[in-house]
């Protein structure tokens, strides 16, 4: 009895605090079928996506003021939610915090100028776009992962069998244990770091204009590698077997060759940044 009174008082206090601050909490639930699609357009605020074992999409939205409203729309298993800014809204008053629970096979599309954006433990396709948003994606398998930011940093962790494309103008991109048939990262001035196996017999391409590239792989990595920097330095910790290609390696600015059975293709290209293919110390 005493515990129930404590819980009741705590709930009233929390709700009171939310209402006093002008915030509004909304919860939406949708029954969906296989491979449902959920799209969130949220100019200001974070979006977190986690898996739901049920065939249901749950959307929890915290609106920070009355200068923003959310417009949800459902057509079958396709859900669209837009945060609609009203007159006088700014990045603080127009902010909406989203938390989504989605079936693991759902396809998720998130847009936010400020973010952060987060998704984990899903098997469907994940598309994220944010100007300055900090993007964090982890523990995904098999799906397509497409990420675009202008200067928001991007971190991908434990992505397997994925088709991955990341483009950022000046945000740093970090890939940890990312493997798949296709992994492509391009940046203008951000740094790209890769720490993984380059496994899966895939095609890996890391390309920058002025950013540095640091790729760390184990001694058992099986890759055919091409690395070139037009105006920067390149370093290589591996002993490469010369490959059969027309690529001309220039000492200090390019190297090419194979390691072990060359199952995967790896391109490390930077116009004026430094490139380092580092051997992981076990």
């Amino acid at each position, binding site marked *: 009895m005493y515990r129930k009174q404590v819980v009741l008082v705590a709930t009233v206090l929390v709700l009171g605090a939310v209402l006093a601050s002008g915030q509004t909490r909304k919860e939406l639930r949708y029954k969906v079928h296989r491979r449902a699609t959920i799209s969130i357009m949220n*100019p200001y605020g974070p979006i977190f996506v986690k898996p739901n074992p049920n065939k249901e999409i749950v959307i929890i939205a915290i609106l920070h003021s009355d200068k923003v409203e959310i417009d949800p729309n459902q057509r079958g298993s396709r859900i669209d939610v837009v945060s609609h800014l009203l007159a006088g809204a700014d*990045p603080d008053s127009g902010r909406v915090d989203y938390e989504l629970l989605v079936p693991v096979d759902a396809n998720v599309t998130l*847009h936010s*100028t400020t973010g952060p954006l987060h998704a984990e433990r899903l098997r469907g396709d994940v598309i994220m*776009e944010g*100007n*300055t948003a900090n993007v964090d994606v982890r523990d995904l398998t098999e799906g397509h992962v497409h990420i*675009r930011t*202008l*200067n928001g940093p991007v971190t991908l962790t434990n992505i397997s069998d994925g088709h991955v494309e990341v*483009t950022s*103008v*000046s945000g740093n991109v970090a890939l940890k244990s990312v493997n798949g048939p296709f992994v492509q990262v*391009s940046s*203008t*001035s951000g740094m790209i770091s890769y720490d993984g196996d380059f496994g899966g017999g895939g095609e890996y391409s890391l*390309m920058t*204009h*002025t950013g540095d590239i640091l790729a760390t792989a184990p001694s058992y990595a099986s890759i055919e590698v091409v690395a*070139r920097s*037009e*105006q920067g330095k390149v370093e290589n910790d591996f002993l490469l077997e010369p490959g059969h290609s*027309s690529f001309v390696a220039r000492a200090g600015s390019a190297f090419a060759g194979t390691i072990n059975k060359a199952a995967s293709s790896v391109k490390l*290209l930077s*116009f*004026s940044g430094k490139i380092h293919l580092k051997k992981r110390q076990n």
Partner: protein
Amino acid sequence: MTCDEFGRVLPELEGGHNLEQRAHLRVCPSCSELVAELEAISREARFLGLEDEGEPSPRVWNSIEIALRQEGLVREPLTTAVVPFPRNVGRRLTWLIPAFSALLLILGLLVYQNGGRRQLAESRASGVPAQPASVPSVDEQQLVELVATGTPSLRAEFESDLKAVDGYVRDAEESVRSHPNDEIAQQYLMNAYEQKAMVYEMALNRSVP
């Protein structure tokens, strides 16, 4: 001559401009800028090994012109009051997306067709230093103002990103000029244009109501 009349004869202007067209270009900054952009596309296509074939076919220019008309750059003369900045600017700037997409398509086709088969007489130049930053174009300045109107806090970062991708495009273009058969140089150029198209697209997505 009005902008609409000039736009109608634009696909036919391969041999140069007559007096009336030159007079219109002198007084109309938007048509003048359009011609400059199209000439730049034509010049860049030449550096990818089109010298023996000449300029892209008129069908290509027609396709670009159709896309520009659809985006409202080549338009009917205004009969009502001018819509105040920035809404008019936002709609006007959306032509940049299909223009860049058309440019990417042309470059992609040329890279695919020419590959490494052409042999040119130019010798490999030594490493080319990055070009100094140039003044942003009128459209880029207007795009920055449009972004700043929608979200003032993003202005500085957007200007910096635009400057960075412009530098990438310049360096990549110079690299292809110096080494037109180099597939990696061609990849840099494609990547640079894709980055620039992304910057424009994300800015306009955030700014146009």
